């Protein structure tokens, strides 16, 4: 991290206005979600029978839904649900995937077995696997977290396992072994720190997909259920009344898109900074 090349790349990334804007947007979202109780103009579940399907006005900046609930407030509280589930599921995926990846990188026998098991998970299209898991476990936020974690754990497994194998073949490992340092200690003291960058890059890529999958699950009705305000679920609620009240569906979708866009821009920036070999955009 301290080498001048990396520092120069960090400086370039942080000066990129697009990266800065994306980071600010994400920060604002996290803040709004955390402080939702103070920031949101109304309660996300407060029903106002006199105000159903009101278009955007000063009173309700983004309009109301069929129960007269304030869309803006629901979207602000929805940050907690959507980003919370995405964050929790990726954290779980990193934990499980990295642990298994380390195990796999160490021993040949475990590597064979774990590799085959991961192949099975890779054999499913991500959203299909998530839908299948959600269908079995029943709809709910916990289900969404488990489903997305199961989908993305193999990605972290692959990154960590590959990294361990590459590092294990390095001269410094051989030197440490010759000096009598144990395998576990080499792993913990030398190899883990070299895996931080690729794992961060992978997290940046997976978070945006996690947000998309969570909202898709909730949209399809197998993720978070109403009245909990998940962006995907709000969009789904508005679907039936598209002609009458398009704002109910349009605004949550815009929220999802902007958040995912911000994550993608940050992900691109992190990848160019931490892993310059695979520069894409």
């Amino acid at each position, binding site marked *: 991290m301290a080498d001048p090349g990396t520092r120069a790349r960090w400086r370039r990334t942080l000066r990129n206005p697009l990266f800065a804007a994306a980071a600010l947007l994400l920060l604002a979202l996290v803040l709004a979600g955390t402080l939702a109780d103070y920031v949101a103009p109304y309660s996300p579940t407060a029903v106002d029978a006199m105000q159903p399907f009101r278009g955007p006005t000063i009173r309700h900046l983004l309009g109301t839904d069929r129960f007269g609930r304030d869309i803006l407030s629901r979207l602000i509280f929805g940050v907690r649900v959507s980003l919370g589930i995405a964050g929790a599921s990726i954290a779980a995926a990193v934990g499980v995937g990295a642990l298994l990846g380390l195990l796999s990188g160490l021993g040949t026998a475990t590597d064979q077995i774990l590799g*085959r*098991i991961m*192949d*099975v*998970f890779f*054999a*499913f*299209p*991500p*959203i*299909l696997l998530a*839908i*299948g*898991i959600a*269908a*079995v*476990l029943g709809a709910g936020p916990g289900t969404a977290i488990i489903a997305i974690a199961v989908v993305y754990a193999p990605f972290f497994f692959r990154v960590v396992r590959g990294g361990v194998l590459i590092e294990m073949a390095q001269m410094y490992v051989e030197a440490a072994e010759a000096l009598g340092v144990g395998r576990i200690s080499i792993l913990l003291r030398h190899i883990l720190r070299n895996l931080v960058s690729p794992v961060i890059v992978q997290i940046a890529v997976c978070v*945006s997909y996690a947000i*998309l999958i969570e*909202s*898709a699950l909730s*949209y*399809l*009705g*197998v993720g978070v259920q109403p009245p909990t305000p998940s962006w*995907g679920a709000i*969009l789904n609620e508005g*679907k039936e009344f*598209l*002609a009458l009240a*398009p704002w109910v*569906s*349009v605004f*949550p*979708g*815009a929220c*999802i*898109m*902007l958040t*995912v*866009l911000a994550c*993608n*821009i940050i992900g*691109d920036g992190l990848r160019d900074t931490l892993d310059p070999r695979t*520069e*894409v*955009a």
Partner: protein
Amino acid sequence: MGAYLLRRMGATGLTLFGVSLLVFGMVRLIPGTVVEQLLGQAAMSSPEVLASFRHFFGLDRPLSVQYVDWLAGIVRGDFGVSWLSGKPVLGMFLDRVPVSAELAVLAVGWSLLLGVPLGTASAVWRGGFRDSPVRVGATLGLSLPAFWQGTVLILLFSIYLGWMPSLQWVSFFRDPLTNLTTMALPAFTLGTATAAMITRMSRSSMLDVLGREYIRTARAKGVPERTVTFHHGLRNALIPVITVAGVQLGYIVGGIVVVEDVFTLPGVGRLLLDAIFQRDYPVIQGVIFLLGAIFMLLNLAVDLTYVVLDPRLRRG
């Protein structure tokens, strides 16, 4: 080539076996779920009813017996029958395939037709004023949730512009025009993320290739720039693009479920969702297994294309 093919097919077979275990386990390992959810409160109050149902569906046998039975059925092409309609699962699936297959082919088709030229051009224009819109557009395309894009398109076309494509799906062979007008928006929606991905990949792959020594050699020899771009550059740049297209097939197969829901198309995705809401487990199990298997076979096909295009891999 032959050895590679065999090894690759062996690995696919093994993974397919794992997929069958996972799909079977997913539905069965959760104790009691199936029958209790099907019967609801009635089962809780009467153990006899519960037992007779478990026996009827064969759920009182050991898991291993149930699994072998199910697997043997699959080998014979028997995926069981729907608990609701009593129809064979495979038949229900095959009835829905034409809709989904057409949707997938149209989506992959337009995304390749747009993505490869756009990405290549963007690489050739690198840093110019025409490069930026392509890059921004591609990042935007990757960030669009399909269900929202579809919803907005419906809003725009059907509600504001009054353009009403037929809601009833008709086969292309019966009425091509109606079929294509029905499929246009769904295929556009399904292919957007893939088009964005292919554009990005074509661009980076082309940039990589254009920086190679042999391109410089070709230019030094006086080969016309057009030939350098297309003959020396693009041909080599396409190989990684095909890999990405293969990975994207996964998103297409998964995206079908979402897009068919948005546009209410009667494909396999709709079949799966209906089965999920009705807790029709044999259908859920069968459809997920079949979609997984189709995705794996498509990947195998992509890998083989890759070998045909890049002879170096045949030795590997």
